[in-house]
């Protein structure tokens, strides 16, 4: 399994993986220091491919960028060692692992299998949407920092919302996702407190007009609180 994923290292260094694979590979790297070193080296080699690409940007870019950074808060060094991928729910994984140990101890192997099975089915469902021939991607920045990406497929009659915030909201607050149809929002679920990354499959998403992200008081809100942290128009 580990070897299997490690064979993606070249594609990873070239940014030739899709989001799911990239997340899986990041997990792999977190568990393997020598793999990290190899990935860093291959990445540096890949960066040399940019040596020939050198082009003076229009002068207005400098003005625009300098104006933008004056308005852009920086991440603190303290937040730095926690890359955004961290939030891919180590808690839940630990819980599943702990549950597996307990269940194995009492000999209830079938339940472990069910948990694993659900995970696999979810990944398959995700893959089916993300690799659908008619998949359409949308992306917006979060006002609070980070990105939300939405993939929809008419053919699969479903979509995926991927929230990738730089950090979780302050204590007592959570990110909540919304689908908006004819101006009427409906909740697509809230993240847990302390959670900044989530990937959700939403049935029927391709018929929505927009996806919204808000910051709400935990555990979730019935109606979205203005202003939206991000709105992704799907039309």
């Amino acid at each position, binding site marked *: 399994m580990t070897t299997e994923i490690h064979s993606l290292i070249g594609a990873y260094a070239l*940014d*030739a*993986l899709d989001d799911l694979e990239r997340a899986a590979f990041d997990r792999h790297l977190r568990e393997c220091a020598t793999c990290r070193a190899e990935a860093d080296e291959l990445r540096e080699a*890949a*960066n*040399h*491919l940019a040596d020939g690409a050198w*082009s003076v940007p229009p002068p207005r870019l400098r003005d625009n*960028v300098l104006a933008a950074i004056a308005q852009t808060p920086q991440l603190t060094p303290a937040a730095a060692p926690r890359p955004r991928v961290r939030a891919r729910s180590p808690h839940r994984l630990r819980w599943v692992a702990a549950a597996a140990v307990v269940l194995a101890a009492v000999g209830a192997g079938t339940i472990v299998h069910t948990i694993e099975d659900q995970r696999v089915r979810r990944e398959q469902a995700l893959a089916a949407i993300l690799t659908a021939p008619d998949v359409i991607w949308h992306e917006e920045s979060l006002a609070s920092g980070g990105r939300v990406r939405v993939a929809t497929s008419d053919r699969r009659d479903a979509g995926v919302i991927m929230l990738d915030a730089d950090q979780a909201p302050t204590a007592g607050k959570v990110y909540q996702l919304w689908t908006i149809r004819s101006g009427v929002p409906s909740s697509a679920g809230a993240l847990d407190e302390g959670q900044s990354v989530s990937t959700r499959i939403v049935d029927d998403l391709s018929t929505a007009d927009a996806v919204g992200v808000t910051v709400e008081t935990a555990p979730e809100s019935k109606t979205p609180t203005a202003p939206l942290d991000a709105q992704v128009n799907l039309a």
Partner: protein
Amino acid sequence: MTEPSVGDRREHIAPAPDAAALLTAVAGGDEKAFGQLYDLVAPRVFGLVRRVLRDPAQAEEVAQEVLVEIWRTAARFDPGRGSPTGWILTIAHRRAVDRARAEQAATDRTLKVGAASVDTPYDEVADEVTGRIERQQVRVCLDGLTELQRQAVTLAYYQGHSYPQVSQLLGVPLPTVKTRMRDGLIRLRDCLGAEVPA
């Protein structure tokens, strides 16, 4: 012959010795240092993004995102994992590829457009090479790759294709593409590491 250390290999990608110092100052909120860093790296960022996206207007938009992202996340830069310029180019490439894929998904449901350019990715690269020493170096090193390694690496890097797309474009199985990307980069790394004076 002495084997260059990993550190040596990483150093030479930086266009100026003080990119690291500037980045440290930027991490501390120094806007003036950011202006200097901008002057140092913006042409490389814009050049790379434009190389991947081809459309100058989109490239400008994405380059701006990248440069603001550098400001925002400067404190995250970890010198233990690569050079400052490498870190910046990594962000730039990733953003450019994300945008290219989004565009691809939106406008080009098939790979036909990509297939038309299959024969020429390397030639296009060569066209843009105009004699800077380091560019020559990467070009020489690319020449040292097998045809399949070179195609796999350049289709992914310069055109933002995923490895399954590269597999389709080149008509070779997925495991082969994964392997060629990996051993192509290893060969490139060894070539660049060996030829660049410390």
